[in-house]
């Protein structure tokens, strides 16, 4: 680790970063802040500009406006120094179909002038081992399945010890074991001190492995923060299961909440589920329980439900299924 890896620093930092294709802005003034050592989930619907952002971050495409710092160094000016520290999977894997998996990795490793040729065989072997492809190392890539190519792409990102991994939809095409392996892999990488920037639309996966989240929508970064911050920003609601729906509603209203109409009924027909958004500061769940009990409401069930990341995601990026074109 270099001195630049001071705790608290940012692994990726952009300021008002924009990239246009013709008239259309694919990336529109985004301010990314990816802390070192984090697993940053980069979310967004199809066509929201995730891959384009990654291309610009890594110097494949030039930004129209804005500043980029990757691992504390300015990009793309210091590209040659930064990229060896970065392992990347961008817009799916790409290989020479007529070469074997191992030969492909060697080829890409030779392209890096600073990669040691002496340890190449060993590193290629280890990387293949890590993604579970050791047995298919000698097979030509055109005979690989979709998931095998994806694994090989991840292996390529792991050819050298990296400070930063940028993985564009790493679980694409992977079987359940493969997806699990990716999660383990990401965890082991961060334990080694690396930062992982991973784009995805698998929210469950992001919830399981990320510490930080950024949400893209139509080229803009509409939310960014720790996973908990982002969830907390969403609605939280309390639900009371009780036979005394009317009283419960009055008690909740008395606390300044807006109780919703009893929703469905419990196991017994006499029970109803009364709910309210927890939108007033100072009104904590425990206050509510105390008030309900004091009001003589027979509380048979009480729960606090945070909105899932999925709800939060949809509320940020819109319900529509159509890609913003």
């Amino acid at each position: 680790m270099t001195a630049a890896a001071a705790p608290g620093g940012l692994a990726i930092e952009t300021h008002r970063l924009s990239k246009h294709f013709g008239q259309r802005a694919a990336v529109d003034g985004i301010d990314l802040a990816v802390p070192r050592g984090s697993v940053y989930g980069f979310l967004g619907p199809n066509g929201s500009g995730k891959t384009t952002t990654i291309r610009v971050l890594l110097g494949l495409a030039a930004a129209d406006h804005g500043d980029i710092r990757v691992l504390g160094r300015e990009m793309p000016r210091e590209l040659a120094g930064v990229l060896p520290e970065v392992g990347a999977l961008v817009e799916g894997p790409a290989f020479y179909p007529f070469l074997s998996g191992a030969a492909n990795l060697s080829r890409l490793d030779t392209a890096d002038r600073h990669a040691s040729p002496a340890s190449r065989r060993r590193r290629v072997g280890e990387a293949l081992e890590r993604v579970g492809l050791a047995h298919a190392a000698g097979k030509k890539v055109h005979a690989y399945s979709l998931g095998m190519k994806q694994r090989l792409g991840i292996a390529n990102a792991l050819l050298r010890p990296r400070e930063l991994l940028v993985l564009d939809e790493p679980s694409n095409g992977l079987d359940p074991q493969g997806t699990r392996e990716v999660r383990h892999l990401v965890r082991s990488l961060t334990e080694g001190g690396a930062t992982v920037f991973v784009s995805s639309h698998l929210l469950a996966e992001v919830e399981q492995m990320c510490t930080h989240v950024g949400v893209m929508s139509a080229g803009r970064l509409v939310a960014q923060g720790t996973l908990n911050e982002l969830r907390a920003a969403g609605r939280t609601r309390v639900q009371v299961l009780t036979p005394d729906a009317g009283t419960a509603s009055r008690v909740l209203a008395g606390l300044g909440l807006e109780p919703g109409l009893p929703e469905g009924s419990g196991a017994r027909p006499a029970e109803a589920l009364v709910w309210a958004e927890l939108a007033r500061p100072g009104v904590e769940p425990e206050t509510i329980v105390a008030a309900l009990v004091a009001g003589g409401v027979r509380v048979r069930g009480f729960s606090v439900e945070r909105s899932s990341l999925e709800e939060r995601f949809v509320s940020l990026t819109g319900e529509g299924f159509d890609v913003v074109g």
Partner: protein
Amino acid sequence: MASELTVLFRRLRTWAMLLALAAIPILIAAAVKLTSRPATPGRGPLFLDRITQNGLFVAVTALVVSVPLFLPLTVGVVAGDTIAGEASLGTLRYLLLAPAGRVRLLLVKYTGAVVFCAAATATVTTAGALAGVALFPVGPVTLLSGDTIDVGESVVRSLLIAAYITVSLLGLSAIGLMISTFTDVPVGAMAATVVLSVVSQVLDNLPQLDWLHPWLFSHYWLGFADLLRQPISWTSFGDNALLQAGYIAVCGAVAYGKFSTKDVLS
């Protein structure tokens, strides 16, 4: 660089093209052998009439036949594929992320194309020599100037001609590389390169365009006959090398200008 050559020569396509080139002298030799009637001097490609007397002419004849189309065709395929091929596979982005360095990648790619030019001419020359030795008598060679040289000297001359043709193809390779940086469709770059080589030769044959001829990259392509005189006349070799160097400089600069700032979006 070694890795670049590995990729080039582990490809079935490369070997198929070299095999096709090797077939040219073999076909010529077989055809001449099978038709007992001696070829009339002046008809058919240069030197064809001499093959029956001396097998060493098979290689030279095959080169004469290959220069206008077959060699440019294969070179166009390789040179047009350089950048566009990587782009269409998507490997270009991973090479750049390695990081290979854009300028370094261009240089390595061009060198790969140059090695292929040499391999292609060497294939025709070698296959020609082998076919000639196998099917025809071999002896001292009478040059265009009327002098006679022994077999050893004639091998040297064959190699010189191969070198001359390799140099001739360098400009075309640079053109292919340049076109290749402008597109992500390798077939397009290949076709454009080959078409340009044909256009250049056509223009070279239009007497109305006299002034243009010395600037066409194919102008000296058949000028290697000068290497079959005693003493060797080096002027066309020099002029050719200079012209090709000019094309390399110009196309190289354009390729660099395009590629160093290009957005890699494939």
